[in-house]
């Protein structure tokens, strides 16, 4: 940069930009420890009550002071977390298998319709959530399928398969096909080459795709909102419902835990990506 003042101004702007991104998250974390139950924006001292309350360990209640309501919502929250984890595990497994198979097919075979598949697989990612959500809702209801965990898992797989596909495809593009050619020349069957030569090299990409699928599945709100049954609320849908009913300090505590979990997962993802595997 020829002009030092220009660089200083740019640096200032950029740091403000990062402050803008992170300040809201820090606000939630800070206020999750605020003892003031009525106006949570006015600081009234440090407390862990809201965290204790989340796990049914605190007598302190917000507003009306109804302990029974708390424990009920604690159970509901933990049930929602369980639902989210169950959905995410199944979704990740299914979409990773399908997405990886698709990526291998498109990268290693020449066939008619290859270009079509490449374009078509972008659509589930680009389709607005709400359109896919109501499409699946009408579809399941018209077929007479009960909305349940299964419908949520199906819904998540429709778009997460594409995400896994993209990540794995990027990994394949960076591979040296000579290894597979060598394997074939040395007499290994196509299936053996695929399993013993290609798949191990793809492992980091597959892990990355799976991680991304897991994170997005855990966070999906819109599609789940439309196709979850009455008893199968996921964590984001549960929090959305809580926010709609009114703001309570416990939400700050859940939110802080979620932020913490996502930082850990993101760090794990970064570590996976930076690890030298080949």
């Amino acid at each position, binding site marked *: 940069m020829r002009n030092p003042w220009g660089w200083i101004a740019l640096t200032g702007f950029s740091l403000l930009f990062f402050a803008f*991104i992170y300040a809201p998250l820090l*606000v*939630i974390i800070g206020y999750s420890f605020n003892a003031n139950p009525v106006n949570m924006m006015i600081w009234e001292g440090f407390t862990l009550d809201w965290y204790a309350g989340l796990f049914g360990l605190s007598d302190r209640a917000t507003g009306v002071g109804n302990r029974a309501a708390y424990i009920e919502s604690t159970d509901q929250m933990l049930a929602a977390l369980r639902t989210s984890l169950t959905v995410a595990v199944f979704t990740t497994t299914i979409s990773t298998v399908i997405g990886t198979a*698709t990526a291998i097919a498109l990268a290693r075979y020449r066939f008619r319709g290859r270009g079509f598949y490449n374009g078509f697989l972008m659509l589930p990612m680009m389709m607005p959530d709400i359109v896919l959500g109501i499409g699946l809702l009408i579809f399941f209801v018209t077929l007479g399928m009960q909305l349940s965990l299964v419908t949520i898992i*199906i819904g998540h797989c*429709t778009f997460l*398969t594409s995400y896994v596909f993209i990540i794995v495809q990027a990994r394949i593009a960076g591979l040296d096909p000579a290894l597979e050619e060598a394997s074939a020349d040395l007499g290994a069957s196509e299936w053996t080459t695929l399993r013993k030569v290609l798949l191990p090299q793809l492992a980091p990409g597959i892990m990355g795709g799976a991680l991304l699928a897991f994170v997005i599945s855990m966070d999906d709100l819109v599609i789940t909102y439309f196709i979850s049954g009455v008893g199968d609320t996921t964590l984001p849908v549960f929090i959305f419902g809580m926010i709609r009913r009114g703001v309570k300090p416990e939400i700050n505590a859940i939110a802080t835990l979620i932020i913490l979990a996502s*930082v850990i997962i993101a760090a794990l993802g970064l570590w996976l990506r930076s690890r030298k595997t080949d």
Partner: protein
Amino acid sequence: MALRRQSVILGALLAPVTLFLGVFFVLPLLIIAVFSFLTPGLYGGVEWAFYHWNYGRIFGWADGIIELYEPIYLRILLRSLTFAALTVIVTLILCYPVAFWVSRLPDRWRLAFLFLITLPFFSSLIVRLYAWLLILKPTGLFNSVLLKLGLIGQPLEILYTPTAVVLGMVYVMIPFMFLPLYASVDNLDRAQVEASLDLGANRVQTFVKVVVPQTLPGILGGAVIVFIPSVGNFIVPDVLGGAKGLMVGNLVEQQFLSSRNWPFGSALSMIIMAVVLTVLLIAVARARKGSGNA
């Protein structure tokens, strides 16, 4: 022999995605199209009879009564397009300088800041919106600070306004604008910039004639992937928007979960889909043309 084996394995690799997306992606979208032409039933059901006034209603003629022109839905649709466009413009203005800054940092810092940009992508959308709800409330942090500083006499009403909706969408869309933009900016040929400045072009000329054209793919890419989820967004206006910030996504949600007019909701979704496909086709056509010229 080898060819046949190849086709068996290829079939096995492609069958799952073809079946799965065929049944659970293509069919649901086709069903929306069918439902958008069905007659809404009296008590929330549908009658399997052709009816085109679902679309008529969107454009202002409810249920075939031509005299009663009231384009309330059209207005909400235009508002959604405007909000999405504003989101694109604001994220672009915010991210462009920062992408430059990050691309010129020493390696270690650059990776650290890129990580910081992607981190919110991993954290919950609803949690991030909730943070803004806390900040923008009349008794929230923003107003408290301004009141304390004596800059305002009474709390500003930001929550439940269009400003809050656009702010919320900008906030959640920043990583989607930043990453394609950064990829473009990072590839910028600095020698050309230097040459332009050495040959006497001023900074503005250099920016307009050299920098912008070279980073155009990133700008357009970012614009498309920010615009598309913004148009149909209903979570942001639901949490931060109130009645004045209502978008077409909220309308669709209402038709399905409270008004129970599924055909009308389907017609609205078809419009969202049409907007998205139009934007995508334009983007693809431009990208093709761009690579053809290069």
